[in-house]
């Protein structure tokens, strides 16, 4: 059973990275994905914040799953998630005020990020703690890399830099649209479309449940 368990764990982790990537495959958590990714740094920060919340929430949910009656399941989860989001928010404001300012009201909106409730509901509430943890980690990392990718592309074209480092020379005229809402939608649309094109798969039409 032991080797099997390991296989399952790594699978739990890997699937969030690619096969069930929340952004690219499941089109979940779109608000932060689009709103904060005008730079790679912001994408990273949002990714980390979300990863923190999803891991904490999933773990706690998995621990207390047998205690919670079904009827108040969602409500309890929501409280737990909101609490962790508050913690993350306070932490950012205390330690990284500039990032906190850049992410603005999108940090609290992690509460309604479907990924978190979705993982708590669909996975953590049904599986043991270690698996829930790994699953959440996978999802968080998957979410983060998608955000960083999006943020990098937008930052590169919009400012000529990535993570604040100038990449493009002086000849480069920044495409301001990439930092605007329109650019966010278009870039993500193209990324998902191209990934589908090359992997020959299609995005599942989902919406938050």
């Amino acid at each position, binding site marked *: 059973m032991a080797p099997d368990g390991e296989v399952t764990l790594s699978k739990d982790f890997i699937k969030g990275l690619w096969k069930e990537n929340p952004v690219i495959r499941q089109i979940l958590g779109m608000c932060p994905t689009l709103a904060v990714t005008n730079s790679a740094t912001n994408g990273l920060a949002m990714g980390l914040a979300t990863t923190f919340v999803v891991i904490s929430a999933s773990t706690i949910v998995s621990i207390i799953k047998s205690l919670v009656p079904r009827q108040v399941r969602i409500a309890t989860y929501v409280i737990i998630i*909101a609490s962790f989001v508050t913690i993350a928010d306070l932490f950012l404001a205390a330690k990284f005020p500039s990032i906190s300012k850049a992410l603005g*009201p999108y940090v609290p909106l992690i509460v309604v990020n479907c990924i978190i409730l979705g993982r708590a509901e669909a996975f953590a509430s049904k599986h043991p703690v270690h698996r829930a943890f790994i699953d959440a980690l996978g999802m968080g990392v998957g979410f983060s890399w998608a955000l960083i990718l999006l943020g990098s592309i937008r930052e590169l074209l919009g400012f000529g830099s990535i993570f604040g480092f100038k990449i493009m020379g002086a000849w480069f005229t920044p495409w301001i649209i990439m930092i605007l809402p329109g650019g966010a939608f278009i870039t993500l649309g193209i990324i998902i479309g191209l990934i*589908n094109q090359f992997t020959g798969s299609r995005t599942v039409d989902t919406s938050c449940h």
Partner: protein
Amino acid sequence: MEIILIFISAAIVNNFVLTYFLGICPFIGVSKKVETALNMGMATTFVMTLTAAITWLINTYILIKFNVPFLEYVAFIITIASLVQLVEMFIRKVSPALFRALGIFLPLITTNCAILGLALFAVLREYNFIESVVFGLGAGVGFTLALVIMAGIREELEFMDVPESFKGAPITLLIAGMLALSFMGFAGLLSV
């Protein structure tokens, strides 16, 4: 005058979906048919207006009074979740027909970030009660507008020859981007 400006600003100029990226999930998920989009939009508008009112009350009379601002998120999300369920129950009781039309969308609204976003924005902008409600209404109308326009376009997509890999979410995102580009025409409309 201020009130009208808040309304137009929330509905058109600073459209929640197209400039703040709020409510993207339902925007992508429930915009396949104009009729459903309209119903969803109306349900959301209703909940938004109600939320704006109630969260204002909670913020002013509980959070600020007891000096517990850190409970803001917890309080708001629970308020919204309960509100949606109450509305659902209420509609089911009062008008079964309306429930059939709107009911299926109600659970979706809970996790609509536009609603929580609305509550947070209203606090952030220090709106008073009336302003909050108008802001909620405007945001709801703006959400409905974007949703219905998108649904109209997506109905047309049925007949189109979109590349296979761009069908579904990618093309919807691209259209949203184009809509956002078009809505940029309204930029600066209210500040001159």
